[in-house]
C-alpha cells in the first residue's frame, strides 16, 4: 500500500465548535463505510477551511468564497466521488453568497457544511453576515425559497448525536444522487463570539416536534420565519424533498479521450464546416 500524507492536528482553539463538526463528519463517513480514496473534501478559507487537512481523504483548499463552484466542478467531472464542501459563514454567505444561490438552483449531488459562528475568526473577529445584532441573512430561508432544493438542515455542535445523524443523512442524500445537501451548523467561536450560552437558549429542535412536517416546503418556510422572528433558531431537518429521485450522470473522468477511436466522429464535426 502506498503511504501518503499523515492527517494534521486541528488548528482550532480549545472549545471551538468545529471539533464537533469534524467528529460528526468522521463518524458519518465511517458509518457509511465510504473509502477515503473516494472522498474529496473541499474547504474554503478561514478556520473552518482547514478541516480537510485532518481527515486523510483527498483534500482541496479552495479560493475564498469559491468552494461551491469548485466542488460542483469536481462532482460534475466524477460523480462517483463523495464530494463534500465545507467552509465558514464569511466564506459562504459573504464573498461566496452568489454561488450558494446558484448551487441551490443547480442542485448537484454534493454536501455543503457551513460552520456558522457569526464572525471571521481567522482575521480576529470581524462581523459576518450572520452576526446577531447586525442586519443578518438566513441561508436556510434562502434555500427554501429556491424551488429546486432537496435537502436543508441545520445542526448545533451542542447536539452532537443529531449533528452526526444530519451529516449521515446529507451524505446519503448526495451519494444516492438525489441532489444538493445543505447543512448549516451552529459552531461557536469561543474566542471572538462565544454564542454557546445564547444559542443554548435560542435553538429549537424541529426533529422532536411531531407536528412539524419537513417534506412540506410551504409550512417549513412559514415555521422558520415565525421562529426566527421570535428570536429562536430552528435546528434539525428543515426540509427534505421525498420525491427527489436518484439521478444518473455522465462521468467525464472515465470518458474516452483516445483520438484514434474518436476519429470518425471528430471528422463528422469537421465535415460540417465543409464548403
Amino acid at each position, binding site marked *: 500500500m502506498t503511504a501518503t500524507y499523515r492527517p*494534521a492536528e486541528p488548528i482550532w482553539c480549545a472549545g471551538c465548535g468545529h471539533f464537533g463538526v469534524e467528529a460528526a463528519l468522521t463518524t458519518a463517513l465511517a458509518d457509511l463505510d465510504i473509502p477515503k480514496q473516494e472522498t474529496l473534501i473541499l474547504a474554503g478559507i478561514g478556520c473552518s477551511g482547514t478541516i480537510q*487537512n485532518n481527515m486523510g481523504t483527498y483534500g482541496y483548499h479552495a479560493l475564498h468564497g469559491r468552494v461551491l463552484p469548485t466542488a460542483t*466542478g469536481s462532482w460534475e467531472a466524477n460523480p462517483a*466521488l463523495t464530494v463534500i464542501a465545507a467552509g465558514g459563514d464569511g466564506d459562504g454567505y459573504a464573498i461566496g453568497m452568489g454561488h450558494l444561490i446558484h448551487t441551490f438552483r443547480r442542485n448537484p449531488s454534493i454536501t455543503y457544511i457551513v460552520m456558522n459562528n457569526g464572525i471571521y475568526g481567522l482575521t480576529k473577529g470581524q462581523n459576518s453576515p450572520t452576526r446577531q445584532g447586525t442586519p443578518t441573512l438566513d441561508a436556510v430561508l434562502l434555500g427554501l425559497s429556491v424551488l429546486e432544493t432537496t435537502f436543508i438542515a441545520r445542526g448545533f455542535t451542542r447536539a452532537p448525536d443529531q449533528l452526526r445523524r444530519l451529516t449521515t443523512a446529507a451524505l446519503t442524500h448526495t451519494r444516492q444522487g438525489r441532489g444538493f445537501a445543505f447543512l448549516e451548523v451552529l459552531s461557536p467561536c469561543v474566542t471572538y463570539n462565544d454564542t454557546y450560552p445564547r444559542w443554548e437558549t435560542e435553538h429549537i429542535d424541529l426533529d422532536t416536534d411531531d407536528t412539524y412536517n419537513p417534506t412540506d416546503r410551504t409550512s417549513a418556510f412559514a415555521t422558520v420565519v415565525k421562529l426566527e422572528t421570535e428570536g429562536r433558531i430552528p435546528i434539525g431537518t428543515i426540509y427534505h424533498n421525498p420525491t427527489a429521485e436518484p439521478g444518473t450522470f455522465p462521468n467525464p473522468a472515465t470518458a474516452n479521450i483516445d483520438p484514434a477511436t474518436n476519429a470518425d466522429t*471528430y471528422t463528422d464535426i469537421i465535415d460540417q464546416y465543409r*464548403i
Partner: protein
Amino acid sequence: MTRVVSDLNAMVAGQGGDGSLTVVTLVGNLLAGRGFHLYSTRDVASRIKGGPAAALLRGSIAPRTGIGDTLDVFVAFDTEAIELSGHRVAGNGFVVYDSSGGPLPPGYLGDGVTVVEIPFGRLAVGDLRRELYKNSLAFGVVSRILTFSDTEAASVLEARFSLRPDLVEANLQALAEGFIFADDHGFTHNAGPLRLTDTGHSERILISGNHAAALGCLVAGVRFFAGYPITPATEVLEFMTRHISTYGGVAIQAEDELAAVNMALGASLAGVRSLVATSGPGISLMQEGIGHAGATELPLVIIDAQRAGPSTGMPTKSEQSDIGMLVHGGNGDFPRIVLAPGNPTDAFELAVTATNLAQQIQGPVYLMLDQAVSQDSTTVPPFNVSNIEINHGHRLTQEQLDTLNEYRRYAITNDGPSPLAVPGMAGGMGLVTGNEHDEWGKVSTDPTNRVAMMDKRARKIETVAESLPKGHRFGDPSAPIGILGIGMESGVMQEAVEQLAATGLPIAGLQPRTIWPVPHETLAFLTSKERVYVIEHNHEGQLAQILASVRQDCATVTSILKYDGVPFTPRELAARIAEKETAT
C-alpha cells in the same frame, strides 16, 4: 468587356438584422465552388438588431486572412452604408444600391464606379410581402455582375435554405426578379463585367478561430468546459454545449466567470481535461483562479478572445490589449504559457498543443486570440485528426501508483512537475492548496521549502521551453529589416510585406506563436535584424514591452500601433512602415 479577377473583395452593409450576412454567405458559396479561398468578417455593433452592420468577404486564389485594400463589389442597403463605406470602393468597382430610402448620396464614390440603383426593400415588401427577400434580389444582381450562371446562383440559394423548404420558393422568385433587374442594367446572363479565374475545386472547410480552437481542445481530450456568455468568446461555449456530451463530457454555463474558472479547477482536480473561454473582462475576473491553478499545479486551458478594452470597451471590436495581463497578470509569480494563433489552422493545432501542455506543466496555459481571429471565418484544409497525440505528462496510472512506497502530491523533481494521482485512486490521497505548501500539500512558510517550491514550479516552464510551438516566417529571410506581429496582424503583415517588396523594400517577417515564455526563435530574430517593426492592436505596445523586458538591448524595435477597433488594411500598414523607413 469582362475583367478577370483572382482576388475579389465584396461588402454588404445595412442595418443590423438586414441580413447582410446572408448575401455574403451566398456569394462565398459561389466563390468556393470555383476553388477560391475565402475570408469573411463582420462589422457590427453590440446589439441584436439595428445600428450600422456590414459583412465582408474576400475570395482569392491565394489564401488570405484579411480584407483587401479596396472593394470590388459593394451592396449598400441604405444611404448610411454609402456614407460610411463608399470611399472603400475601388475606382473600377460596382455598387448595388437599395434606393428604397432615398437616392444615392453624392460625393462618396469615385467617378469610375458603376452604380446600380434598385429599390430592393420596397420591391420585396410590395411584390413578395417580406423585406428580407431583398437579400435574394440583391444576390441575383451580384451573381450576374460576377458572371455566374443563373443555375449556379439558384442552386446555392436552394442549398442555403435547405433547412427551411417553406422559404425556398419565395427566395427563388426574388432571385429571378434580381436577374430581370440585372438584365435591365446590362448584366446579361453569362456576360457580366467581372469573371473569376477558375482554379479548380479544393477540399476546404470554412471555420472561425473560436470553432477551430474549441474543436482542437475537444480532440485533445477536453471533457469539461465552464463558461459565461461574453463577446467575442461565446462561440466556444456554444460549441462545447453542442458537442461535448457526445463524448461523455460536461459543459456548464456558470453564474459568472469566478464560478466558471473554479468549476474548471474542480474538474481538473478530479483528473478531467478542463477548459474555460472568455474575453478580457472575464479574464480579469478569472485572474485569482488562474493564479490558483499556478499555485495548486492544476492543468487548465484558458481561451482569451481579446476585444477592445479597457473595462467593457468595444465588445465587437478587435484588439490585442490583454497581452500584458496574460503574461504578467495575477498576484504572485507563477509559471504560465501563452500561445497565439493567427488563423483557424493555427487555432486548431495550438489548442491541441495547449491542452497537452497544461497536463505536462500541471498549470495554466493560455490560448490568446483576438476578436478577428476568433470570429472571422477562413477557408483552410480540413483538420487532420489521424495524428493527434495525447500527452499525459506525469499523471500516474493506478498500477504505477501501486509501485510507489509513498505518494507526495508536490514531490520535488528535477524537471518540475510531480507525479499526479487523482481522487478515486487508492493510495494517492493528497492535499491541494493555494497556500505555500510542503511536498505533502501541507501549509508551510518555511523559507527553505518556499524557495524549493517556487523553483520547482518555475522549472516546469524551462523543461518544455524548447518544445513550444514555433512561429511562421514570411517575406525575405535575409532582409536586414524585420516585421513581427501576432494574431490578427498575421495575414495583413504578409500582404504589406508583399506590397513593400514590390516597391523594392525587402522585409523578413515573423509571426511568433509562442508569446510566453519568449522563445529563443523570437530573440534570435530580433538580434539578427537591423530594425524590427512590431505590429500591434493596442495603445501601449504591450508585445514590444514584453520583448524588451527579456532582451534589454531592444533599441531597434519600433512599434506600429493601432487601437481604433479597425484592422489594418495591407496598404495602410505598408504606408506606415514606408513612412518610418523614410524617416530612418
